[in-house]
């Protein structure tokens, strides 16, 4: 005698939502009843009743994968490299607030952030300014591009950006040392350097940080580009 009611309940129990592990108030997207976690439990539970149900009538794609194959398939699928966007987009409202809270930038570009002017054109114009003052490390370039802005302010901005660059360089140096040992890492590093070269037009300015390793980085960039 087959306990169909028991089998039915065991399947339902296996695929029910469980162990979220976090406070429900932080669950903006709720898990589906048939989540991966629960499918695996369901696979095990269904196998228990498999002998009693015609296999063709079951959810064969799920069962066909099996627990181990399911995990392997998923691992392979998820191992794919993501095609990263080199430059993360900046939120226009963040740019706007950044300029509004900065007395110098607001004095020069405040008209773009005014409610009556705030449109796609203003956002595009402001974006260029925001990125220049966030990324550039060459004071001469900034002074030439923004002759009306106080040179001392530009020097301060450049100083901050250079500090961040210094951290980047330190990280690159560490990777470079490791890369010498591994051709695969070396190739990835070259790709990364290409992105950096695009991102920081004033990269030659990095020469102020001279070290043997850093010179090696510059040599690699010249080779790559």
């Amino acid at each position, binding site marked *: 005698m087959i306990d169909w009611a028991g089998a039915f309940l065991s399947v339902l129990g296996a695929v029910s939502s469980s162990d979220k592990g*976090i406070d429900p108030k932080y669950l*903006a*997207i709720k898990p589906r009843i048939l989540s991966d976690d629960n499918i695996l439990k369901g696979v095990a539970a269904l196998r228990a009743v498999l002998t009693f149900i015609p296999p063709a009538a079951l*959810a064969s794609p799920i069962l066909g994968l099996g627990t181990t194959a399911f995990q392997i398939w998923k691992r392979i699928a998820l191992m794919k490299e993501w*095609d990263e966007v080199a430059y993360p*987009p900046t*939120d226009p409202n963040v740019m706007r607030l*950044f300029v509004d809270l900065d007395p110098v930038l607001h004095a020069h570009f405040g008209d773009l952030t005014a409610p009556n002017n705030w449109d796609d054109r203003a956002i595009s114009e402001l974006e260029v300014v925001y990125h220049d003052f966030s990324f550039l490390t060459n004071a001469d370039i900034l002074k030439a591009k923004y002759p009306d802005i106080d040179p001392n302010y530009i020097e301060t901005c450049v100083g901050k950006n250079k500090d961040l660059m210094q951290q980047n360089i330190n*990280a690159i140096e560490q990777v470079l040392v490791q890369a010498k040992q591994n051709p695969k890492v070396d190739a990835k590093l070259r790709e*990364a350097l290409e992105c950096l070269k695009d991102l920081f037009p004033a990269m030659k300015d990095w020469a102020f940080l001279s070290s043997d390793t850093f010179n090696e980085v510059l040599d690699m960039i010249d080779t790559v580009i």
Partner: protein
Amino acid sequence: MKILRIAVVALLLACKAAFTPTPLLISQLVDQKDQVSQLYMACTTGANYTPDKPGCDSKQLQDKVVSTMSLSKEFISADIKQPHGYVVYLSTAMIYFRIAQRAENDYSEAEMIARQFFEIQKATSTQPSGDARFYWVVMASGHASYQWYNDRLALNADRKADLLLCYAEGNLALVSFPSGPDKVLLVQDLNILKAITDSIK
């Protein structure tokens, strides 16, 4: 007995039809994410979004961004512990907020999903990843900046507490965050969070 047997089979088939499991979605999600990246890259010059650039199809980009965000949410709901759905959703949302309309509901949802990503990681591993913290800071600063201009009353004491927590977690991420443009963005967004929280009494 036969009826119950049919009912079990019907239930399973219905479940399968209604809830496509993650493995069947992942290839589609990866393809869509790649397409979004390519379309966005075609519309940028350096770090700036330039929709007038030859070869840029901003309408197609916008459509693809919206459908990718929607698919990512499906992916997340298939397994809320897995990071990939969150990363695709949130990185695509960053493009969305640059190129498309910026509305309270969209900001609110994106920040909640970023928070969920952080909380899930906190609950399931010893340390939330730098990604989880980064995206929370990015979405929170974007949303809070929007509120600054459009709903200042929403920046109340409760909101301040949330933003301060986010700010603290963002600073933790900064310590070991990989170098590059994302780090520059993280620093700028942390400055914005600091300025906003300082202004809330």
